[in-house]
């Protein structure tokens, strides 16, 4: 009987296991190698077919071969079995193969627990609302599956689904307590595998023709900004990223050495705002040009770029103040000016042109105007410029005359340097779109931009955006209106229908609220919350203590509830259970539906030596529990004591 209970996995339980497996594995299909997804899907289909046909499952040797083959394939793909991607791939493969090994109830339980573990791994890849909802549903399904496996065929689908939902609901208070009180550790809690943050998009610290145009095709959000006051006009929304000072003829890079602290004169009142930056694996924080006050854990570089001390790998929030009108390094040091005049040997025609302009009129403003005038008259703004060769700037200026912001910025800086004006490229983002639903300004990767900065005596570094000369609408209304018709754009920005735009705004506002309120609950907010409950300056020890007390109270409360709702157990019943436990030690098991008399009859035929004492117990128990005379527990106790 006991072996039966262990082995029995009824045929009708299998679809539940498949459902649980698919629900926990499916989201991984989005990012794992295609061959693995196909192999897993085929395994599911095979297992399902075997089940429908009621065929024998593959033997142990075939399974071992399949596992070895799967491990080899994963090893070939990732060169390891560990780490985020390879580890998850391994788990997914094992989950699929386990479905071919459904022999006993134990196998089914392994699938349920592997499912729970796989649920966790999805958070390595996404923490969005959809992921949360999917995982909640999958959790419900896996729990229901576990209950179905334990309950056997008597458990109905509605019953187990309802019970699983009730269980999940009952765990909510614990979930909330853990969410609110678990110590928040800046950075990952455990050592995440090396590859955990790979593949993020964003600005890089080098610029070649085409690097920003690539970004412009992404509708991903780079950061969101909430201004305390009014929104600055679009033409003033320059979000300053890395400043590129060295040029090797093709690629622009930041100056690698140390630059003295920037000296900023404020000409307008500062405006305050909060930026919520998506993780981009870089240190720059993309403050509005020019930042006047930084958050505590940020530093200002000599080129006025706000940087974090560590690369930003997760979404993080920063508070800034910026001024829109300023003077920056009017007394710029000679070596800095000198290195912003340096040019590689190529692009001779451009250098000649700039020198001719300087011979005509050496006034700096005249030179700038000349260059901008040239761009405005003869150039086109496009995402698909022709490829450029060795003398890229020359080709761009004299032959192709089509380019994206990085072409214009680079050509402008080369012209200015050739004409003797210190100039450099500034990269970052320009513009952004305000979501009317929640008031946040949303800046996307497609808003990535490059512009130029020229140093003028008396005025310091002055921002000049050559793209504005070519395509003023890029600056005023964003990239979608600036590009000629027919050019590729992020799908999101192609939507023009009003109701769809409204829907997108709504959705992004919901997402932002999720990010700000749920995912953004960091150490600072946790501390504020506890301070509001009269616990200022709680460190992780205090938190652990509060968490321990809270969970203890919750546990005690649920225990008290469960105890008070427990069906009252009759003392005779308790004594009977004691007798059954004694019998179980003698390898006699009584099914819950077996009557005491039936048990006595069975024992009489199977184990005659136990029959006499058991009959005494049974008779005493039946009299105590079912007779009108009431409880004669003494006889029952004495009879049980006589059980061997």
């Amino acid at each position, binding site marked *: 009987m006991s072996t039966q209970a262990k082995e029995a996995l009824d045929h009708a339980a299998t679809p539940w296991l498949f459902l649980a497996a698919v629900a926990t594995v499916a989201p991984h299909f989005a990012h794992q190698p295609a061959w693995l997804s196909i192999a897993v899907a085929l395994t599911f289909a095979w297992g399902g077919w075997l089940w429908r046909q009621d065929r024998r499952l593959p033997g142990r040797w075939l399974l071992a071969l399949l596992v070895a083959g799967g491990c080899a394939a994963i090893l070939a793909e990732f060169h390891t079995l560990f780490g985020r991607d390879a580890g998850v791939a391994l788990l997914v493969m094992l989950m699929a193969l386990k479905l071919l090994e459904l022999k006993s109830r134990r196998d089914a339980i392994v699938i349920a627990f592997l499912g729970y573990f796989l649920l966790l791994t999805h958070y390595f890849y996404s923490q969005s609302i959809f992921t949360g909802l999917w995982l909640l549903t999958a959790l419900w399904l896996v729990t229901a599956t576990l209950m179905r496996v334990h309950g056997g065929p008597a458990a*109905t689908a509605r019953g187990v689904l309802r019970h699983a939902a009730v269980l999940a609901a009952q765990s909510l208070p614990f979930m909330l307590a853990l969410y609110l009180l678990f110590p928040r550790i800046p950075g990952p809690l455990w050592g995440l595998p090396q590859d955990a943050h790979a593949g993020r998009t964003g600005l890089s610290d080098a610029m070649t023709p085409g690097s920003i145009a690539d970004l412009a095709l992404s509708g991903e959000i780079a950061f969101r900004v909430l201004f305390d006051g009014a929104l600055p006009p679009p033409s003033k929304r320059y979000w300053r990223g890395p400043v590129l000072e060295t040029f090797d003829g093709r690629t622009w890079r930041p100056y690698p050495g140390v630059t003295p602290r920037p000296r900023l004169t404020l000409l307008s009142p500062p405006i305050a705002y909060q930026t919520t930056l998506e993780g981009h694996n870089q240190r720059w924080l993309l403050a509005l040009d020019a930042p006047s006050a930084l958050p505590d854990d940020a530093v200002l570089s000599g080129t006025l770029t706000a940087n974090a001390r560590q690369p930003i790998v997760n979404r993080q929030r920063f508070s800034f103040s910026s001024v829109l009108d300023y003077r920056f390094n009017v007394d710029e040091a000679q070596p800095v000016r000198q290195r912003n005049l340096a040019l590689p040997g190529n692009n001779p025609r451009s250098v000649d042109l700039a020198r001719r302009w300087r011979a005509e009129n050496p006034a700096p403003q005249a030179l700038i105007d000349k260059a901008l005038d040239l761009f405005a008259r003869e150039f086109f703004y496009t995402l698909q410029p022709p490829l450029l060769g060795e003398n890229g700037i020359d080709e761009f200026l004299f032959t192709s005359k089509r380019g994206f912001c990085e072409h214009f910025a680079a050509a402008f800086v080369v012209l200015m340097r050739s004409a003797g004006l210190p100039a450099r490229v500034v990269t970052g983002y320009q513009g952004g779109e305000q979501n009317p639903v929640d008031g946040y300004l949303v800046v996307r990767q497609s808003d990535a931009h490059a512009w130029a900065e020229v140093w003028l005596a008396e005025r310091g570094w002055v921002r000049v955006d050559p793209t504005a000369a070519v395509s003023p609408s890029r600056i005023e209304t964003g990239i979608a209106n600036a590009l000629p018709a027919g050019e590729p754009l992020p799908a999101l920005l192609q939507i023009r229908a009003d109701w769809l735009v409204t829907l997108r705004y709504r959705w992004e506002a919901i997402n932002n609220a999720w990010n700000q309120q749920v995912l953004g609950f960091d150490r600072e907010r946790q501390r504020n919350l506890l301070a509001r409950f009269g616990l200022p300056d709680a460190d992780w020890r205090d938190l652990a203590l509060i968490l321990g007390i809270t969970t203890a109270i919750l546990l005690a409360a649920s225990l008290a509830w469960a105890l008070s709702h427990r069906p009252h157990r009759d003392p005779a*019943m308790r004594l009977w259970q004691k007798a059954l436990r004694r019998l179980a030690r003698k390898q006699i098991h009584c099914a819950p*539906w*077996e009557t005491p008399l039936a048990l006595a009859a069975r024992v*009489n035929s199977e184990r005659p030596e136990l*029959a006499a004492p058991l009959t005494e117990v049974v*008779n005493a128990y039946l009299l105590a529990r*079912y007779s009108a005379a009431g409880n004669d527990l003494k006889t029952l106790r004495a009879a049980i004591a006589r059980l061997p």
Partner: protein
Amino acid sequence: MPTFPLARRPLAPVLARADEIILGKSTEIRLAVACLLAGGHLLIEDLPGLGKTTLAQTLAHLLGLQFSRIQFTSDLLPADITGVSIFDHERSEFRFLPGPIFSQLLLADEINRATPKAQSALLEAMAEGQVTAEGETRPLPRPFFVIATQNPMHQIGTFPLPESQLDRFLLRLELGYPDQAAERRLLASGGQRQHLDELTPLLDASALPALQREVAAVHAAGPLIDYVLALVEASRQAPAFQHGLSPRAGLGLLAAARAWAWLDGRDMALPDDVQAVLPAVARHRLRSLQGSDHASAEDIAALIRSVAIP
């Protein structure tokens, strides 16, 4: 042999004598007597020639009950059951001639051969214990006990009883084929019906109400009622059935279990009694989800196995 200590087994002689007539069917006989003691009506369903009528006649004889029999046919009218009023010329008034239903034990043979109209005349009398004919309500004799027999429904020319009518029968039995030893004795003795005439009543009909009161007084402890409730509830939740047991079925189950316990000489009902009578109480009231037939014996066994004894 470990069994419960018994005071006496009442009606043991009746059961033993009936066993001699109906060979190899002691459980069925005991269920039939239990049904009578619980004050319910009995439905026997099986193929022709398996001893349905003999069983009814045997019980009537042994218990000293006034017996009558109606052979149900498709042209049977309600008045053939309840009786008619005829004009008495001598006294110049209508006189009621009671029908066969006015007896203590009525055998309604092959009830499903009659039209629903005739069937309902009988079933209403069974439910109410009285007959209303021509504006006058006449009580039926006490005790009043109906044994109806029915052929399996898939036979030609039958009007199957609807569930609402089936619910009025406390128990339903299938006699089934006798085992080989019993059948051999049957053949050797040349049929059992001839012995019916030799039977002498072992009981007086007037004693029966007292026995029925004794049965009703058999103690059903709280845990036992919980068990009946759990079984009824489980039948409503079980996916194997189209619908569950009615509260009337629950009452019937408890009453039958009491009678079963009393026949065993106990003054308290045990879960064993409930399990023993459950198939006879529940099978005709439950409809299997697969097919449109009664619940199978396996379904009931599974139902018992799905409920822990509280």
